[in-house]
């Protein structure tokens, strides 16, 4: 019997989840997909109303009747208000910053609410964020919720099914709806160094920048210091002349490049190779080096900077 009710509950839940609005954001929660049940507070309130009704009847007290009936009516109205608090809510977008495998990914869920009076007391839960995060969505701006999801392997991370709930306005009813936005974040391979410096294994020859040659890069001029530039590149003499921090620039063409090649890492299993490449990419990026990535079906030309780093890591993630 217990297993039967369990199976029935599972069946109902599965059908509810199947019907949850899904697709690319923006997603709108239709009124028919908003579920509502009395909360614990609602049950307590119901008992209170019954006691008040008994008291009013016992004393034939019309003001007591009025209070009881008015609060009961307000509770019924609050049920409709609670339903309206969710119905028509729009999931404007879901974004996630890329993370490395093993880290916790955060999906930023954006809720758009142009309703007046504003929707309040919204909670979004899903994935590992079981307790739900409060969303403040006023009438003139959108609200955001952060949904955490643990990652294990690299690749695309699908946004967990979201539960959007609220107990607004009186807390007597819990209203909720599911949404499965078609959105994903990227999980880069965890950067794990197993081989040490790339020179030791499989460097294709046109070499990595070794420290002795670095200083010999051709000087091409000075430019103003920008935040983010390495302090070591500040040319103090030039700075003294101009009263501004100047840094030396080396012409790009003269900078030797690294090639990180998947096929050369024969000593490692495929996933370990990707982790090794991710490690090298991060290390090179930290040094400001110029590097290229060569994968069996895909080659990224040598370059530098955050955009290049992200492109390389994405290529590894989606390998």
């Amino acid at each position: 019997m217990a297993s039967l009710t369990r199976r029935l509950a599972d069946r109902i839940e599965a059908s509810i989840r199947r019907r949850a609005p899904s697709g690319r954001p923006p997603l709108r929660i239709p009124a028919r997909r908003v579920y509502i049940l009395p909360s614990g507070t609602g049950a307590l309130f119901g008992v209170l109303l019954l006691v008040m009704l008994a008291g009013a009847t016992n004393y034939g007290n019309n003001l007591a009747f009025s209070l009881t009936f008015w609060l009961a009516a307000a509770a019924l109205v609050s049920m409709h208000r609670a339903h309206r608090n969710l119905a028509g809510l729009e999931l404007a977008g879901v974004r996630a910053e890329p993370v490395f495998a093993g880290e916790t990914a955060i999906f930023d869920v954006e809720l758009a609410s142009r309703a007046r009076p504003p929707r309040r007391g919204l909670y979004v839960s899903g994935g590992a964020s079981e307790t739900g995060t409060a969303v403040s969505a006023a009438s003139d701006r959108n609200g955001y919720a952060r949904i955490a999801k643990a990652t294990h392997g690299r690749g695309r991370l699908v946004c967990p099914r979201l539960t959007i709930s609220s107990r607004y306005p009186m807390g007597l009813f819990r209203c909720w709806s599911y949404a499965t936005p078609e959105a994903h974040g990227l999980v880069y391979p965890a950067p794990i160094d197993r081989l040490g410096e790339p020179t030791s294994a499989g460097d294709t020859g046109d070499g990595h920048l070794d420290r002795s040659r670095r200083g010999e890069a051709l000087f091409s001029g000075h430019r103003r210091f920008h935040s983010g530039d390495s302090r070591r590149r500040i040319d103090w003499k030039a700075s003294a002349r101009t009263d501004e921090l100047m840094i030396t620039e080396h012409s790009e063409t003269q900078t030797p490049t690294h090639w990180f090649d998947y096929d050369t890492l024969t000593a490692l299993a495929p996933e370990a190779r990707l982790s090794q490449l991710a490690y090298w990419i991060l290390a090179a990026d930290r040094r400001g080096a110029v590097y290229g990535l060569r994968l069996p079906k895909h080659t990224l030309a040598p370059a530098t900077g955050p955009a290049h780093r992200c492109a390389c890591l994405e290529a590894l993630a989606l390998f």
Partner: protein
Amino acid sequence: MARRRPKPAVSTTSRGERLALTSIVAFIGLPHIGHLPFWVSLATAALLAWNAVRLLLGRPTPPGLVRALLTAAGVGAVLMGFGRINGQTAGVALLMLMLALKLTETVRYRDVVVVLALCCFVLVTQFLFSQSLGMALYLVAGSWLVVAAFVHLHAGDDAPPRAAAAESARLLALAIPVAAALFVLFPRLPGPLWGLPANNDGTARTGLSGTMSPGSIADLARSDAVAFRVRFDGPAPPPAARYWRGPVLWNFDHGTWHTGPGVARTITPPRVDAQGRGVRTDITLAPSHKPWLIALDMPLTTATAHRRTAGGNWVAPHPIDQRVRYIARSALHYTVDAELAPAARRLALALPATGNPRARALAHRWANHDHDARAIVHSALDFFRQGRFRYTLNPPRTSRDNSVDDFLFTTRAGFCEHFAGAFTFLMRAAGVPARVVTGYQGAQRASIGDYWIVRDSDAHAWSEVWLAGAGWVRVDPTAAAAPKRIADGITAAVTDSGDLPYMAGGHDRDAWYHARMLWDAVDAGWNRWFLAYGPALQQRLFAALGIAGFGTAIAVLTGLVVGTLALVSLWLAWHMRAEREADPVVRAWRRIERRLARIGLARHTGETPVGYARRVAATRPALTRQITDLAARYARLRYAANIESAERREFIRRARRFHPRRTGETRAG
């Protein structure tokens, strides 16, 4: 369904919220100061103040041991003060103390919910003490605060308290139709479910007590509280016929008239033969905590659920603790008990074995002189008429066992209970069956509204004698001694009218009198239409509406509630529709766009207001001035800082007046 549920909205409350909760409890408990012993009010106020100060200073919650000790002390104090912890006043005292104590530990969500629920309960207990219009306003304020607190608790951290207050007002306003339907149609069960507490006498209005001793009616006459209000169906009877029948007293010992328990067993209710058309009255009776249903003499019927006593007055099955409204039919001309049963005759002639020898002697003289009962009655009335009796609220004291002698021969001053009591004594001593009737005499016409007011100051007592062939006949000895009492009211009749309450006098009808009368009209409406609504009136309403019984009533009610809620839901959907823009300026501009779109000039996506206006002006030169002005204003309102609200209003006003028409050529049809 969902196995993983988010935790309740708020798990802990902020200091400001706890302070607000303390204020709400203080506000809701405030009227109880008048109902509870002083020490309970003081202790509650002290606890609330302590809590507020503690929160203001940022002190932590007092330790559990302190709270437990305080709780025990509260229960102990109530037990010692009242001798019990149940019952109306004791229960309320305990409730208030425990609520104030509970506030010291309201940190978690659940505590706050419990406190708010108890607040609703405290509101209900307020109404047990008073159901005045003022308390109705209190009900509104209290409900609004409690619902606002519930809303704030679930609105999330970013919601301002103002928003909760507005939401609460909106919820309660939308709830009014449903609440009204429930109030009128929800089946009302009569009577107490578990018995009324005994200790509510302290708050009772003193009405007719059911016994009569020297001074008891005069005490009542010092109050101008409204005993009942009455509407006559047709013209009001003449002043001499405005006798309102209350309890009838048969027994006399030690100077006190009363109705012993044996009366109802030995004497059957009277047979009343009405002559002529009766008078139909609609009476709203104030609670008296006595079962008497007062009606114009001689009552024929009141509501069917009630019983007629041996004296011919009507009583309710329970003491009247709430206002009741009933229709009573009365006969002005009647014959009651043309035949007197032997048991009734015995009781109507019974006198104590001793006491009042001079009165007995006087009565025997009359009886020896005249064998006819009518002649004896006349002799007695002549005695009162010629005896230079003084009609006063402050009669001299009389002895307990010879009260009639003292009054008739020594003091010669008294109020109606003296006259009625002495007369009835004389009649019985002379062998004429007689009894005392207590009730009210007179009625004051309301200044506003078609109704009459009978006050405690109109309380009266008179006699009835049984005459062969005529049955029980009303004889008012007070009228013989002070004829003005009946014709002109009590003020003209008593020698010390200064002791009468203000509204009973009413001789100088100044602004205060009229203000009181205006308030009486409001109060009368409140009592008649709201407070008096109960099981009996509901049955009458159901009958008038063709509702067969509670089953049908519940069906109708359910339909009404569901229908109303559907309308509420539709309204909410319309009110909260997503397209609705919060800024009225933007709304006004969108309206302009819609109106232009209707004449084929929809704005392209990405087109700026000014660019749009230029295009509209090029297509429809007639609109140039208006649309250029509107677009410029809109752009300024949207993108400039420090806009005066007058400027916004001006734009909205102009936008509303913008009605572009289709181009000149008129279309057929």
